[in-house]
């Protein structure tokens, strides 16, 4: 505002009134006031923090901000379509912030996406993908393929590469070519596959999933395999837990099959067997 016009008094012991932060200069881009003496029409800039390795500092800052993909999600293709399953726990460091997060998003009645990484990023971009899929349907009078949808998302994420998005998602659906499953992440990577698991609990889930997988399974068998894989991942991984949801994508679209609390699943798989007592304390009759 006005302070920049006051004459400078280099040897003055008076306290300067700092009005930084209160100024707003619509003439300068970015709202930063140019120093007097400089060309007022020069592009606005700010000083970098004084440190020896600014790139490293930036990377650390991003790593601090980027939520680790604390979750377990999995999906696999089999004879009857695609099974998609996930847990429902959200963590902020060691704090469990929610046990009921919906990690499987419904992009359209024939396509599902999973969330791993930043919940906000995944939710927003899946919704955006849903919009694009619908526009494609309206323009082309046919549903978009899983290939096309995953490619649209991957191209968007690639254009934001390096800007700190955290998205590790799987796109599962049934289109004219049959069941389709793609893994798409914030690096812009996109992989077609038959079995994927994403998140901190994925190694545990892969163990159960890979050893029990068969292409010729019924829907119930496949759902049970997915449920067990999620349960075992939640058992070992602290960042996964809550409810194990299982969805199935068939030729008519997706259908939610089950949502079981993993605590209850534990006792279902490993019921407590009452140990037979060898000796019982009995009342002694008065001798």
């Amino acid at each position, binding site marked *: 505002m006005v302070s920049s016009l006051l004459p400078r008094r280099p040897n003055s012991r008076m306290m300067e009134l700092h009005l930084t932060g209160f100024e707003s200069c619509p003439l300068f881009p970015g709202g930063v006031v140019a120093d007097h003496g400089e060309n007022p029409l020069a592009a606005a800039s700010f000083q970098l923090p004084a440190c020896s390795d600014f790139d490293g500092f930036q990377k650390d800052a991003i790593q601090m901000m980027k939520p680790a993909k604390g979750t377990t999600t999995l999906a696999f293709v089999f004879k009857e379509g695609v099974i998609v399953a996930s847990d429902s726990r959200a963590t902020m460091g060691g704090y469990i912030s929610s046990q009921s997060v919906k990690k499987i998003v419904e992009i359209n009645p024939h396509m599902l996406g999973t969330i791993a990484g930043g919940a906000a990023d995944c939710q927003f971009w899946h919704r955006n993908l849903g919009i694009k899929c619908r526009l494609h349907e309206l323009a*082309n009078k*046919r549903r978009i*393929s899983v290939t*096309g949808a995953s490619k*649209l998302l991957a191209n968007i994420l690639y254009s934001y590469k390096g800007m700190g998005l955290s998205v590790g998602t799987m796109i599962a659906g049934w289109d004219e070519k049959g069941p389709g499953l793609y893994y798409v992440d914030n690096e812009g990577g996109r992989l077609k596959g038959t079995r994927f698991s994403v998140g901190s609990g994925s190694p545990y889930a892969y163990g159960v999933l890979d050893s029990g997988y068969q292409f010729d399974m019924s829907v119930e068998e496949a759902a049970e395999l997915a449920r067990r894989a999620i349960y075992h991942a939640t058992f070992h991984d602290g960042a996964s837990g809550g409810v194990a949801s299982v969805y199935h994508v068939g030729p008519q679209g997706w259908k939610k099959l089950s949502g079981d609390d993993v605590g209850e699943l534990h006792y279902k798989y490993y019921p407590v067997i009452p140990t037979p007592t060898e000796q019982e304390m009995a009342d002694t009759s008065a001798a």
Partner: protein
Amino acid sequence: MARYDRAITVFSPDGHLFQVEYALEAVRKGNAAVGVRGTDVIVLGVEKKSTPKLQDSRSVRKIVSLDTHIALACAGLKADARVLINRARIECQSHRLTVEDPVTVEYITRYIAGLQQKYTQSGGVRPFGLSALIIGFDPYSGAPALYQTDPSGTFSAWKANATGRNSNSMREFLEKNYKETSGQETVKLAIRALLEVVESGGKNIEIAVMTKEQGLRQLEESEIDAIVAEIEAEKAAAEAAKKAPSKDS
């Protein structure tokens, strides 16, 4: 009236876009082109004006492919056609890149028509002076398709259509004689329609046939001559048959 045809962004008082209508005139002066859709083939035919002796006729291809499964023929300004064809070819590949799927005939027609429309609503440009006939097979359903676009940017699907010089007579002929055909019969129908307005002979007609398995195939002059001869023979036989009963009575 003359005052309303300078900048094409201006409507005339009675709702005309004169530049677009003048572009249609340019189309009407262009060489005849016909397209016929069969059950398993689609045929495009264009009139070939007599080539100057020193010209290499192979460099003047009038029926071009936009992708392995899409082809185009047009009537009107050939230079404008070249620009439009190049843009359409790029769009075909761009579509393959972004959705990993080949374009449908309807999609690329919509793109070309959209381009033509854009040039009727921009400042300082004139519309493309051509009508295009676009043929192809749908990459999924395998159904054959024939579409036509015009300088105003409208498009629609057709069983058979003609554009360019004397297109009205060709269209009338097609309306009278069209029926579901396949293979060679479709080719014959296209040539018969062209022969209504073009001097007969293989060197005045260019024909290309699109099949699902083999894509676009340009017919050799000798092949066309053979089919033309067949058609003439059939016509002569029909004439004779017509005259014979009346002689008896």
